[in-house]
């Protein structure tokens, strides 16, 4: 869990999530306000530099987290640039390269890249529990937030259960051949469904035992210099937006 490691170990771990969310949002607004691909790239590089040099996220980890999204962006860009038209039969497939749309496609890709760096800034500097509390401040529906809280927590519990079950299956030659592997995977899946059901009942009992009768309520974290940090984030974020307006 690279994102997790980074979110809990970066220099800005204890900075208010409101400040980080505000800066990230300004980054997204700047991405849409960017009038040219170069401006979008400049904003993307500012956001990536702030994440790497400001928050102290190692550049190798940053690249590893960004890689899948970058590959997806590259594939999307290519599919916009290059398309195939189907003729009367399969043998008459003809490629179509959109040279006239090149500038627009590049602009879209650069904007997407900027949005990606803005979101990576938030994801790599803020633990999900802080992001959930930020969303709670934004008045997102309680049910959605409760689901997010429980899913995030049970993700780790279930990944541990998967690991343990697979180890137990491997120890009894559960993955010795392709057909046995298929059977074992089926068993693993069935076992997980039962576990999910049992654990949901246990969580319900535990919630009742601790006096819960509705949505999940938690204490909001206190952050040092919260107002100062929010002001700094908002100011630098606005400067970033202003830069996109000034630049061509």
């Amino acid at each position: 869990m690279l994102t997790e490691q980074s979110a809990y170990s970066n220099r800005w771990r204890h900075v208010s999530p409101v400040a980080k969310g505000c800066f990230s949002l300004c980054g997204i607004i700047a991405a849409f306000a960017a009038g040219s691909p170069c401006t979008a790239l400049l904003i993307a590089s500012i956001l990536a530099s702030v994440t790497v040099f400001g928050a102290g996220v190692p550049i190798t980890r940053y690249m590893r987290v960004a890689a899948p999204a970058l590959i997806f962006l590259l594939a999307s860009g290519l599919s916009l640039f290059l398309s195939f038209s189907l003729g009367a039969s399969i043998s008459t497939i003809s490629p179509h390269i959109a040279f006239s749309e090149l500038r627009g496609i590049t602009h879209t890709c650069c904007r997407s890249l900027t949005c990606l760096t803005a979101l990576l800034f938030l994801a790599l500097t803020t633990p999900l529990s802080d992001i959930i509390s930020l969303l709670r401040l934004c008045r997102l529906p309680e049910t959605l937030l409760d689901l997010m809280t429980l899913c995030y927590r049970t993700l780790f519990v279930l990944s541990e259960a998967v690991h343990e079950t697979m180890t137990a299956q491997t120890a009894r030659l559960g993955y010795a051949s392709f057909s046995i592997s298929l059977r074992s995977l089926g068993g693993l899946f069935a076992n997980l469904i039962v576990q999910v059901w049992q654990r949901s009942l246990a969580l319900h009992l535990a919630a009742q035992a601790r006096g819960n009768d509705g949505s999940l309520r938690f204490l909001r974290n206190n952050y040092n210099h919260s107002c100062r940090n929010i002001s700094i984030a908002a100011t630098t974020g606005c400067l970033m937006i202003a830069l996109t307006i000034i630049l061509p």
Partner: protein
Amino acid sequence: MTDNILKLENVSYSYPDGTLALQSCSLAIQRNIRTVVLGANGAGKTTLFLHLNGILRPNTGRVCQNNIPLDYSRNGMRALRSRIGLVFQNPDNQLFSASVREDISFGPMNLGLGESIVRDRVENALLTVGMIESADKPVHNLSYGQKKRVCIAGVLAMEPEIIILDEPMAGLDSVMQEELTATLEKLHTAGMTIIIATHDLDFAYGWAEDVIVLKNGHLLANGTPDEVLLQNDVKVTLGATPLVAELTRQLCLIGIDLRDKGYLPRSKSEMLKAITAHTGRERTP
């Protein structure tokens, strides 16, 4: 006269699948007393605890707190659960949030307390269980023992009069068991009534002031560890007797009486002390 804080009167309960978990079970828990509940797997320990916390409601019979039958209304349950804290066996089944502080705040927030009060309670609970250093770690990066302590802190933050722990020592190494025992001692000294379900007879013999033994959903024996754990039927049900008690008895048979003014050693350390004292007495003419 005994001061019963909780009482079960002829309680029977069967699960929807037909399993009869409690059968005309009557027992009492005394105030400010360290109580241990023993019994084989499936004897009804967890079902008993779920009744004490009001999660399960008896099919017949009644559960009383301070000699008043439990009020199963919404407000009644809220009041009951603020007074009786329940810690389950598996910590992964009761930790809701990935943040330690957030999870501990869950109970007090449900009580509708103000933010500053909850904040103070969370910090106090973290200090009591010795987890203040790990408060900013994510729950999934904690060890099993640390997760158990977070669970206990989550219940302590509700400041209950009674804390019920379902097999708290299961899965803990010796050092963690010692630490947990010290934490429990601290809570008991602070005036809390503690009820523990365990399979560890040596721990029960050394720690408990009152022992309850369940068999097939009914009360088999109740009394002090000396009275209960050396009974033959209890021995048969539990499959063993505490090692210290057995050794003391065997030593007595060969003429080494470790009793000190009638008090028998209850733990390994007490037994070693008694042997040293006995050796000293033998040497003194």
